[in-house]
């Protein structure tokens, strides 16, 4: 069980399964790995031509044109209360940012992240509850944590992620 769930280079193999598994798209922000339920992910793309929206909440990066649709781009960093990547002198993450297309209530959002990893198939055996000592912003957005080889994967609740009220962040 959980034969080759390597986080970095291993292929998304499923190995010998004992129970139901869930597929997650992994994304990273800084050094942290996050997982998003694959059913909610519509697109993975490189955001370009983002039009900033003045007076918008800080989480909103702007609007962009995704194949003829206007999509609201939201920064996962800002959503998690982290500083913008540009501020970091992190040479290893030089690749352009990526965005995940998410849909909620008929509206499309783009979640801007630092990078996208592979799709992982994870079972219940590696799942852990969210540690209570986590930052409240993380705690509100996370549903659970998966133990991977050498690192942890925080599974994000997409509805909570997109469910902030315009006035500011809202508890999940």
């Amino acid at each position: 069980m959980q034969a080759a769930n390597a986080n970095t280079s291993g292929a998304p193999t499923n190995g010998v399964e004992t129970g139901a598994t869930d597929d997650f798209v992994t994304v990273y922000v800084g050094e942290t790995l996050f997982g998003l339920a694959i059913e909610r992910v519509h697109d993975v793309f490189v955001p370009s031509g983002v039009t900033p929206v003045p007076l918008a909440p800080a989480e909103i990066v702007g609007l962009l044109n995704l194949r003829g649709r206007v999509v609201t781009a939201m920064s996962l960093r800002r959503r998690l209360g982290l500083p913008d990547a540009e501020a970091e002198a992190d040479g290893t993450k030089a690749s352009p940012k990526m965005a995940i297309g998410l849909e909620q209530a008929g509206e499309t959002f783009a979640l801007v992240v630092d990078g996208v990893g592979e799709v992982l198939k994870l079972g219940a055996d590696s799942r852990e509850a969210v540690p209570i000592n986590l930052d409240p912003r993380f705690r509100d957005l996370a549903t659970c944590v998966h133990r991977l080889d050498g690192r942890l994967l925080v599974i994000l609740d997409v509805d909570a992620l997109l469910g902030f009220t315009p006035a500011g962040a809202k508890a999940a």
Partner: protein
Amino acid sequence: MDDLLREFLTESGEHLDTVDAELVRFEQDPNNETILRNIFRLVHTIKGTCGFLGLPRLEALAHAAETLMGRFRDGLPATSASVTLILLTLDRLKAILADLEATGTEPSGSDDDLISALERMSEGPHEPVAAAPPPEPVLPDPVVRELKPGEVSLEDLEAAFMSAPGPDESDFLAPPPPVAPAPTPAPAAPAAVAPAAPKAEVKIEAKIEAKAEPVEAEKPEPARVEKVEGAEGEATAAAKNQTIRVNVDTLEHLMTMVSELVLTRNQLLEIARRHEDSSYKVPLQRLSHVTAELQEGVMKTRMQPIGNAWQKLPRVVRDLSAELGKQIDLVMVGNETELDRQVLEVIKDPLTHMVRNSADHGLESTAERVAAGKPARGTIRLAAYHEGGTITIEIADDGKGLNLAAIRKKAAERGLASQADIERMTDAQVAKFIFHAGFSTAAAVTSVSGRGVGMDVVKTNIETIGGLIDIATTAGRGTTFTIKIPLTLAIVAALIVRAGEHRFALPQVAVLELVRVDAGAQRVEHINGAPVLRLRERLLPIVSLTGLLGQSSPGAETDQAGFVVVAQVGRERFGILVDEVFHTEEIVVKPMSVKLRHIPMFAGNTILGDGAVVLIVDPNGVARQVAQGVQGSGGHIDSDADEAVEMADTKTTLLVFKGGQGSFKAVPLSLVTRLEEIECAKVEWLGGRALIQYRGRLMPLVPADAAITIKSEGTQALVVFSDGERAMGLVVDEIVDIVEERLDIEIAADRSDLIGSAVLRGRATDIINIAHFLPLAYDDWARGLKRPEQISTILLVDDSAFFRDMLSPVLKAAGYQVITAASADAALAALQSDPQIEVVVTDLEMPGRSGFDLVAAMRRAEPRLAGLPVIGLTGAIGADAVERARSLAISDLVAKFDRSGLISALAEIGAATVSKAA
């Protein structure tokens, strides 16, 4: 809820609305078998379906109503009371349907009250008023009952019904019965009624007259569609069979897809522009055309006739008519005019509200109308028509008009504007105060209106969809509201601008003009940090788009070159400063994300031809921000106007025109009443003098120069001067400009029509002497005021030669001797030396010793001078100036340009002297 039930709900809802309207028609026109047949059929359908679906409560009610209507068919006269009862039943039906829609089951409850009332009514003998419990004690419409003697026609009606098979669909599709008998009852009715009810004669005739038009309009088939009264005839029923029901969501989806297609097409065109030798050109052109047609076609599916929004109004007016005791005719024109259903939804409620307002506030009571010599029945006229890319809706009543004096008073009380501002405002501007929240001049609050809620909501609703609302009112003649709304909200023409690093779209409906500004002649100036622009001698508050959007500190960029987009939202005009203006583009409005909808600055977003997303700026949001911003920095928009006036104190605003041989002439703008452009064909000649009918009066035309001849064709520019009821048109070649300059006049004494000449904007310009022209228009203009015997000599003190020269002829023409002095000292000297002087007219603001100093000196001097009446001339009559004038016993304060005010102040002093002497 199953589909059948849903279908039933939709259909019944529509049927009931139709029955509502039809019943009101039927009440007015009880002999019209078509209407009755239609009503009967609809109610019957509802009853039948209810039985089928197992809805006992609805069925019982519909059955009782049907029975009563069956009795109408059998000849029971339709009285107001019985119609009201049926209408109440329909309301109950609607309530049950609404519950049914919400819960899926028929609500429990009893309708015995209504059913028994209906049964009583239908069982009752032909004395319905006694038998029925009338829900409204006063029913101001006795006419229908009075028509009872016209039973010949009812028999006709009955016969027609007996010949028809029954109230089902097949009957409806049968060829219409011969039209011939239908018109007969109408002429027969008054003849039959007249002897029977002499008291009601006048009313009946008025009613027949009023109704004659719609009745006649029904005879030719196609005309029916034009009026709601005739809308549900056979013609429309046949048309109904050609339509299908489509889910609104399906249409919305189609629209979205077409919008995407339009965007893609735009992108393709953009690409094709860059590749010159593209072989795509021809197919692309075709694609472009097909897309445009498709877009138009899909837009059409979203279109609904405005009549849908009006359908409920006849009922509303009927109920109001009973409630208010007024007789009201509702005329609806152009109800086939189509507009986007989204727009329709938004304007539905405002329209109803405005019609209610017209009925309550607009129209007078019947007694008042008769007393004013108007027809007893008031008319509310609704009209809708297309005009360019917009739809115009007019709601007009022939009532008493807005009470502008009351509005002025109320506006001042509520501090909406300063007293001085309010007095300067035009009637149209004053009328717009009724759109302020909580503004009501209704003496009494009625259940209908008068609570001061509503008109502001109406305006807000209309403005949210980019519409405009305007009022025209004439005392005693009525009020007309004009609403202009865009045909659709989905696609709008927008101006693409750049502010800072980004582009924005500004809806073109709000844009009046573009002005280029730089550091030179047209530059943005600041008052206490608030940017303003002089635009044709008006100050325009400016906001910088970047500042507004928090991208730069406000005011930082306003000195640079750029463009000012002059926009108007409601009463507010303002300029939006942008860095660059690109072009206009038809953009597909996409709604803002729910996460961004709270930002008032944006109305939506769109994708431009080059694929970029731009934000659409909401002019309404900007307007609100402008008002707040300016308030925050120490003044309101209206007070900017004040500053403009104060600035004019040192400078004079002059109207420059071309008059005779291309020479430039000017006249102080403050003396001008209006500028007009008239059709030369309208000029009439009487006894060698040119006249024109102007605002219901004859106005003489006088050329500004001997060299000017009144043109015989085309248009003619006029400068209108008026004095009380008299007006004169000064014929000029061309109106050139309005300039604000410090006047330095060189006097040219040889011509009486000129005061002198001055250099304005680098051009030598003659300043004309209006006092010369007025007597040319009216021989007695100057003699209009009888020369007061008691005062004959006036000392006119003003430091400005211009004013001295302007006022002296006016005063002389009014019959006074005038001595002038250029300063307080010269004035005192003149007063010492000339005992003839009986009144002093002095400018209060003079360099050195001011007018106040002069008067103070006079008051301290010998008794003769101390007692002399003084009239103060002042640019701005402020509270402190009034206080100071009172302490110095200055008889009157007159605004500097107020010629007639000065004359009447002088006359008053004359009268006072007479009474003192007596």
